[in-house]
């Protein structure tokens, strides 16, 4: 293990390098570009024994990733925003084929109008695919999540999407602990697929299937998702044992006695923690629920964390127009059969990189009684 000051993008590239992927097909897009820039350098220099495939679009990147993974090798790609949208069709195929591709998405708004700054519209609109989704708060968490992602994806044969906030994480220097290759190898064994494209053992993949079989395969994906909590838990324990860093499906800060809870996914958790400290100094009992895993959605953990007489403000950085913020939807759905439900505020805190400062959150907490819980809430 060594300590270094790294950009979030560089930390991710280090994590990918430690995971020893064989194929990295990628197409550059702001703010993901640094990640693949560093990876292409690593492969060119021979530091990473992988083939970096320069493709002509994200659609091709996803298709190449699918092919590579189907051929039985560990595969990584990264994108952002419009790039993720362009991949959409193939992302479905990758799930259907049960391929453990790991993808990093640097969260960024989608036009129009043109905007390169961060929100979560791009990944939230991909939530129904069948990819696992984790939102990271720090560069360290992003690096660690890459290793966990490969471990879990390969165990359950489902693809894994790791989200970081564009610029806020990708372009910011942070102190990062980089595991040694030996440690990483101990955590993440080489990938041994059960089935892969093999001329000596011919079989076909994704050939036509009629309704009965198709239905069965889709049911199997859902069952795997539901069963994945055990594997995720096992991965976290194993990770803690080797790297001494603890991770969960969710994370909390001063939650137990909190009367006001902010629910956050991504780097905004950091700002919120500072706001909570400020509020606590003024005797406002605020706390944080950070959602790491959005897919599978950890209903049980969230219900346990939010039950009691709490006011819960859900910070969304995306919304489903005509409905509500996606995180709010999920939490409401989790509480449907619970007797005691918290008061939920569906807050759209930031889109397209609209700045969120500590005082915005503090003011919001102080004005909570004036908010209408039946409406989608917007900032001034």
């Amino acid at each position: 293990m060594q300590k270094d000051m790294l950009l979030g993008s560089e930390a991710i590239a280090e994590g990918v390098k430690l995971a020893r992927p064989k194929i990295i097909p990628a197409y550059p897009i702001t703010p993901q570009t640094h990640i693949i820039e560093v990876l292409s350098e690593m492969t060119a220099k021979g530091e990473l024994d992988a083939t970096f495939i320069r493709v002509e679009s994200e659609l091709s990147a996803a298709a190449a990733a699918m092919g590579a993974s189907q051929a039985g090798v560990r595969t990584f790609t990264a994108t952002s925003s419009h790039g993720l949208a362009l991949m959409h069709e193939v992302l479905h195929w990758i799930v259907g084929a049960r391929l453990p591709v790991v993808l990093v998405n640097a969260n960024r708004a989608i036009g129009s109008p043109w905007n390169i700054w961060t929100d979560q519209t791009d990944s939230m609109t991909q939530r129904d695919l069948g990819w696992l989704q984790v939102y990271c708060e720090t560069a360290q968490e992003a690096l660690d999540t890459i290793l966990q992602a490969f471990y879990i994806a390969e165990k359950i044969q489902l693809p894994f999407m790791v989200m970081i906030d564009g610029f806020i994480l990708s372009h910011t220097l942070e102190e990062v602990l980089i595991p040694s290759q030996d440690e990483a190898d101990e955590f993440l064994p080489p990938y041994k697929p059960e089935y892969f494209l093999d001329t000596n053992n011919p079989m076909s993949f994704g050939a036509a299937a009629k309704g009965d079989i198709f239905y069965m395969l889709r049911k199997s994906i859902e069952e795997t998702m539901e069963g994945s909590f055990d594997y995720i838990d096992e991965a976290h324990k194993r990770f803690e044992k080797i790297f001494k860093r603890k991770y969960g499906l969710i994370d909390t800060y001063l939650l137990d006695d909190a009367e006001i809870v902010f629910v956050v996914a991504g780097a905004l958790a950091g700002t919120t923690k500072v706001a909570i400290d400020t509020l606590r100094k003024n005797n406002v009992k605020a706390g944080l629920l950070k959602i790491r895993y959005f897919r599978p959605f950890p209903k049980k953990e969230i219900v346990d964390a939010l039950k009691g007489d709490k006011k819960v403000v859900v910070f969304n950085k995306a919304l489903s127009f005509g409905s509500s913020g996606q995180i709010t939807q999920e939490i409401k759905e989790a509480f449907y059969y619970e007797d005691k439900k918290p008061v939920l505020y569906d807050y759209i805190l930031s889109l397209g990189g609209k700045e969120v400062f500590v005082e915005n959150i503090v003011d919001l907490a102080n004005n909570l009684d004036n908010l209408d819980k039946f409406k989608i809430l917007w900032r001034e």
Partner: protein
Amino acid sequence: MESVEYNNVISEEDIKKFPISITTTEVNLTGSWRFSKPNFEEKISPCSVGCPANTNIPKYIFHLLKNDIKTAANILRDENPFPAVCGRVCPHFCQEKCNRKEYDGSVEIREIEKFVGDYALDIPYEKAQLKTNKRVAVIGGGPAGLSCAYFLAKNGYKVTIYEKENFLGGLLIYGIPSYRLPREIAEKEINNIIDMGNIEVKLNETVSFDRLQELKNSYSAVFFAGGLSKDRIPNNIELDNEKVFSGYELLKKLNTDKSFAQKIKGEKIAVVGGGNVAFDVARTVLRLGNEVEIIYRRTLQEAPSFEEEKAEGLDEGLKITEKSVVTNIVKSKKLNLTLGKVDKIVNGDAQLTGETENIEVDKLVIATGQAKEFEIEKDDKIFLGGDYEHGAKTVIEAIASGKTNAYKIMAHLENKPFYFMNEQDNFLRSKRDFDSYKVVDFKKINLFYFDKQPPLKINKLSAEDRVKDFKEVALKPTLDKILNEAKRCFSCGVCNECKTCWFFCPDVCINVKDGVDFDYTYCKGCGLCSAECPRGVIDMVEDK
């Protein structure tokens, strides 16, 4: 239509949790989805149409690039027994038609032909077998006669060539100067033809009109390609073969009498005419150390000589007096010429302005064209060809004429239709209807597969160096450069096994070997192969 076992493409036995099938997808007969199908049909490249002898240019280039230069040479010589000669003196009509001309400049086919032709010089032909007792007389041992003899002998006929000179080759030997066509090159190609067998050569045999009638009785057919052996001289000039010569006469004299060149060295010589012969004579005597002036009644631009000859001649220091004719000659020790300025030419006659100029020269050479010695009618036994038939034209047109007539003679003697005789050894004329051939035009070429690359630049000896002797003007490019140039060939309409179709076929039902085979059991008729083919050999046709 569904194939019977469609349900089993993925079966419950195969699947655990992945969409994997170990039953073969071959049960899914995707060919049943098709409503149009790819059809492999090679077509004709425009260069092959441009070539009077219809050489299969893309095909020999294909074999050259496959490192099989021997097959390349054979394909070339199947259509034309003079590739080394044509690689030097042919104006290359093929290059005019080349599809690449519109893109980044025609392929330098001439250089490639020269390269393959030179290689073939040392490859003798397979010995010709005698297949019939029918005998054919060929009058004239120039390119037309030799070409006719070649195709007849190859097909098993006994041929006798009657040549009035004491050597074969006609103007290849005495007409075209060796700086354009080294003599040994022409001689080797001629010898190869004769060595093939079935050909008897009678030298120093002048065939007069009366003799021709005799030969007609002794042979099954006669091919007359006696050329244009009579000089066409302006009325006011008389040849004396001392000071006033015809173009061919002078060239022949220089060829046969070695001391003659020495004798005339340093003299001033005027050459009248604007055709290739005029330029050949002028450039030849220039090389012998003479001062030369060409006198031509039209402008240089209008002169019918090859542009290349004109340009090279000017570089070498030829002096040209345009729009002038010789109106009077006073013979003394020297020749005193009066040149009349031409105003315009009406119906072939020069109308003068009245301006005159006098020049003094040592020799006058008249190269204003050739004419027939005597008139012959063609009949059921006499076939006419070469310059005698079509007037003064190029070497390749003479060769093509000999070839066409050989096939006409064989068809006539065997009482078969013309095309029938060609099926074995002429790729282009082997179909009944020549016009029905599909020629691949520029629009059919998939340019995605071709980067722009300018044509090969041919290096030549410098003008100062080449006037010193009779060394060949055009220098040979290196093998690398030739192969690079060959790679520029689009191979229009001719499959060169690039396998682009195979690469794109999503149903893995293409096999490329000696053409393209389709497995129609699985071909869905998507048309990718046809759309991607760089050279237009795969067409989509309706499939009911």
